């Protein structure tokens, strides 16, 4: 079944919202509003999450893992190094002293947290990505776009919905 991509550009958030709502409520063959619809916007609209439905974010799990690993690794790498650094006594302090190691563990905790969070972000957001099939630079200016993927035959229906909601422009491309 050949697929077709459509990109509708809206000048106005409310129009886009209406279009999305309609798409979500309309059952179209070969179009699943959860999978096949992407909203592109120049700014972050918290409302998009609402009208697009509950989509999970996993980044925080990366954060948790990264921070814990960073802290653990920090402590053990440092303590291990101290214990094997010819076990030299310094300043009468224990060879594995807690206060400095905690400081460093703390830093490693944050370091691990930040690094892995960003890694998680890239993974979860699918970045770096190639250009999607249809894109308009207007999105990075002031317009909102809805990219949909659908069966060849349903394209018309979708187009109609977009037009109805005063899409400024509709791009079209044959999918792979």
């Amino acid at each position: 079944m050949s697929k077709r991509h459509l990109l509708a550009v809206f000048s106005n958030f409310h129009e886009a919202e209406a279009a999305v709502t309609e798409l979500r409520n309309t059952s179209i063959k070969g179009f699943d509003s959860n999978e096949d619809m992407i909203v592109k916007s120049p700014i972050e609209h918290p409302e998009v999450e609402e009208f697009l439905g509950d989509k999970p974010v996993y980044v925080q799990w990366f954060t948790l893992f990264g921070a814990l690993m960073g802290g653990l690794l920090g402590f053990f790498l440092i303590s291990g190094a101290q214990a094997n650094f010819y076990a030299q006594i310094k300043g009468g302090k224990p060879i594995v002293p807690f206060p400095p190691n905690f400081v460093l563990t703390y830093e490693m905790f944050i370091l691990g947290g930040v690094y892995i969070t960003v890694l998680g972000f890239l993974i979860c957001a699918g970045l770096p990505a190639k250009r999607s099939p249809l894109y308009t630079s207007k999105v990075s200016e002031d317009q909102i776009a809805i990219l949909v993927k659908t069966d060849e035959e349903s394209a018309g229906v979708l187009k109609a919905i977009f037009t109805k909601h005063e899409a400024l422009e509709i791009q079209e491309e044959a999918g792979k």
Partner: protein
Amino acid sequence: MSVTNLLENWAEFRHTHPVDDVPHDPYKWAMSIDMDTCTGCNACSVACYAENNLPVVGKDRYEHGQAMHWMRIERYWPEDGREFPDQGAQFLPMMCQQCEAAPCETVCPVGATNHTADGLNSQAYNRCIGSRYCSANCPFKVRYFNWYDYPTTENVWPAEMTMQLNPDITLRGKGVMEKCTFCVQRIRAGERSVKNEGRILRDGEVQTACQQVCPTNAITFGNLVDPDSRVHQQWKAQRVELTVDEQEKDKEEGGSDLRGYRILEELRPYPSVMYLERVRESAI
């Protein structure tokens, strides 16, 4: 790196020193300096220059406080406000106190200065990167930094004079911190030679250059854990203990008959050098 090693020997790695009771064995090098016999003649300081390849920095550098005397003789005047110092001056030879809990050791970013098993505050010149944190943290200010490249660009030792340099000591280039080592080269040579014989060093077998030269024998150096050593006996007689931050002398009320003390003991670096108070005749 081994975490296994870390966990296996955990208790050992958590000892604090010197307050946890882990005595030095078989050596703990220490000193005592009798200020009643020290005359301030500076022979020790010159001997130190000779033994340890200390650069003579010259007038300009000295003026800028960049002198390299590992052993400096401080001269104090009595502070009683009299017109004349009629009890003389007081001389105090000051060098690295080889603290047991040395404030300089913890702060070195590269671990160039450590506490050795025989109780020295060691300095690995080649490891030093010159952050000078150790000196910043030394309460006695007995660490000396090579502000210039004395051997080369400063030409402190013109051609013939290089022949005097002691080959048993690393010659320090610019950017390296240095200090009194209790003549570690002599200690190491001594330790090695007796190891071959399967015994430990006896008192007097290793002398520091300053002790060796001192015309009044004001400096005693030796192994503090060796009960036969003079330094041990002196410490014992003065009831000065290495691991204590307040000695008998200061605990007793109203004039004790002891005169051994350690400088800046209250900061708890546990110095390895005991000073004996200067005595002045009371009858005159």
